[in-house]
């Protein structure tokens, strides 16, 4: 059961596209380059305008939703989303400001039939009338005048823990509230958490949400620079970031892939043998309701169905006028390459530490000397030779650039 405004037969129908909504449609997706705070502020401002309520009332609504957005964004980042994508998902889940305002206004209006029903009850039973009067009289006042409770300190603490095969991030707030987020979208889930791996994970999760960055006496930071690896799309930007709408219910995977290729104005090619190896096939049912989402996001959503049991995902490549779908493993084999890296500029990194770092964070299951089947890494003099799929090299280059920056 999904009590979502966009679910079929949902009584509230608060996400129906309303006339005049075009002006704010895609607000959450039109923020490329804008600071995320501004995107959120714009959304809340649009909601405030649509509500047309007293300022204090509208302000309370916006404050509550702002807090929701902040926490939802935090959870998505902990799951592995980039911050901009996390904010976009959080705002998409809220829907358009006009639709949200409509839901709020409907919730404030008593249906006429309820008054008729109550009146009937009053006539039939004096006890019902008495209970209603008592209920109205005992309704607790909104604590508008009460001073807010302040948090004890300014920090939250993140702690990664392993729960079976899942990596959970325990979020502890100063007020004692403890929450757990499953980091389902992280590329790397360690088999065990050593102190060094735990520290590396905390840095990797998101510097913006860590609370244990020490401050100077002046209240600023100690100047710790952070950098996050953003895995690039396997598709050209013009396709991967193309916004599409794809709505289907229990549609066979073959049709969904054809639809997606059509939305990208490409012919479709599917490596079914490779996809069958993931456990999915032409008839695997897929249900999606994605509106104005990037093609990359759509493929990730499709993988929710394809990779549900096997954990093996499909991927896509664009070649000429064709959008080709296959498994990640299929493309890895096809895109294998041998690359030499000149390490002479890395003065303070020994080869053993570098190998350990790379094989811990770059597709740890793929290295042949660790039981995998994809990649080799060897050192010879000042050079490192890596035979691996293309996406491994992208990740390795990021690490080497980070080490070189030191």
């Amino acid at each position: 059961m999904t009590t979502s405004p966009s679910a079929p037969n949902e009584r509230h129908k608060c996400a129906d596209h309303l006339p005049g909504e075009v002006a704010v449609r895609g607000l959450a997706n039109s923020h490329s380059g804008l600071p995320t705070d501004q995107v959120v502020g714009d959304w809340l401002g649009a909601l405030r305008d649509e509500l047309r309520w007293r300022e204090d009332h509208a302000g309370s609504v916006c404050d509550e939703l702002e807090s929701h957005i902040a926490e939802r964004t935090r959870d998505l980042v902990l799951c592995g989303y980039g911050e901009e994508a996390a904010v976009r998902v959080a705002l998409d889940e809220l829907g358009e400001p006009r639709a949200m305002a409509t839901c709020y206004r409907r919730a404030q209006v008593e249906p006429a039939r309820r008054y008729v029903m109550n009146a009937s009850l009053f006539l039939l039973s004096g006890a019902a009338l008495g209970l209603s009067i008592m209920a109205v009289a005992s309704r607790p006042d909104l604590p508008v005048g009460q001073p807010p409770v302040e948090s004890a300190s300014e920090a939250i603490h993140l702690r990664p823990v392993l729960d079976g095969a899942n990596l959970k991030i325990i979020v502890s707030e100063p007020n004692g509230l403890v929450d757990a987020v499953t980091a389902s979208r992280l590329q790397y889930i360690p088999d065990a958490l050593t102190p060094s791996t735990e520290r590396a994970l905390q840095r990797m999760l998101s510097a913006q949400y860590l609370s244990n960055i020490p401050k100077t006496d002046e209240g600023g930071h100690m100047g710790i620079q952070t950098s996050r690896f953003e895995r690039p799309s396997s598709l050209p930007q013009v396709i991967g970031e193309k916004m599409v709408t794809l709505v289907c219910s229990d549609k066979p995977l073959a049709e969904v892939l054809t639809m997606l290729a059509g939305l990208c104005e490409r012919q479709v090619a599917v490596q079914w043998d490779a996809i069958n190896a993931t456990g999915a096939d032409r008839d695997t049912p897929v249900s999606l309701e994605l509106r104005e989402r990037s093609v990359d996001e759509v493929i990730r959503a499709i993988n929710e169905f394809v990779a549900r049991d096997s954990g093996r995902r499909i991927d896509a490549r664009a070649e000429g006028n064709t959008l080709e779908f296959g498994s990640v493993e299929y493309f890895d084999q096809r895109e294998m390459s041998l690359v030499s890296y000149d390490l002479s500029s890395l003065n303070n990194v020994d080869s053993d530490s570098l190998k350990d770092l790379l094989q811990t964070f770059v597709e740890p299951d793929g290295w042949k000397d660790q039981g995998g089947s994809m990649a080799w890494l060897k050192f010879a003099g000042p050079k490192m030779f890596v035979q691996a799929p293309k996406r491994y090299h992208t990740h390795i280059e990021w690490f080497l650039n980070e080490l070189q920056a030191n």
Partner: protein
Amino acid sequence: MSFPDFKHDPTELIVLAVLSESSLYGYAITKQVAARSGGEIKLSPGVLYPLLSKMERQGLIASSWEVIRSDRASNVAEDQESGGADGGGRRRKWYRISAKGKRRLAQHAEAHRAYAALINSFLSPARQGDEA
């Protein structure tokens, strides 16, 4: 024959049930419901928050605010410089069930049980002697 009143949205029952166990804020309610239903029930913000507003107006739940000092440390200095109204934090709205809400929850639960019993009566094995 008359059926119990099933016009009540189960969402209200679910929210009251969750709040009867502990005070929570909106986002935590969605997570609690999803966790307890194994992901089967997802309360979207567009449904939940207007419903909470309605339930509060009806006196079924009460609320209080908590100021969360920014957990994004880089924002603390900015808020202090701009002189934010609450000194630089966002506000989180907590909800708790009221006495009226507890009564409403009991009514919902009773109606749900009556309905479930009614449906179950159609699913029981045929009485002995009725089989062909």
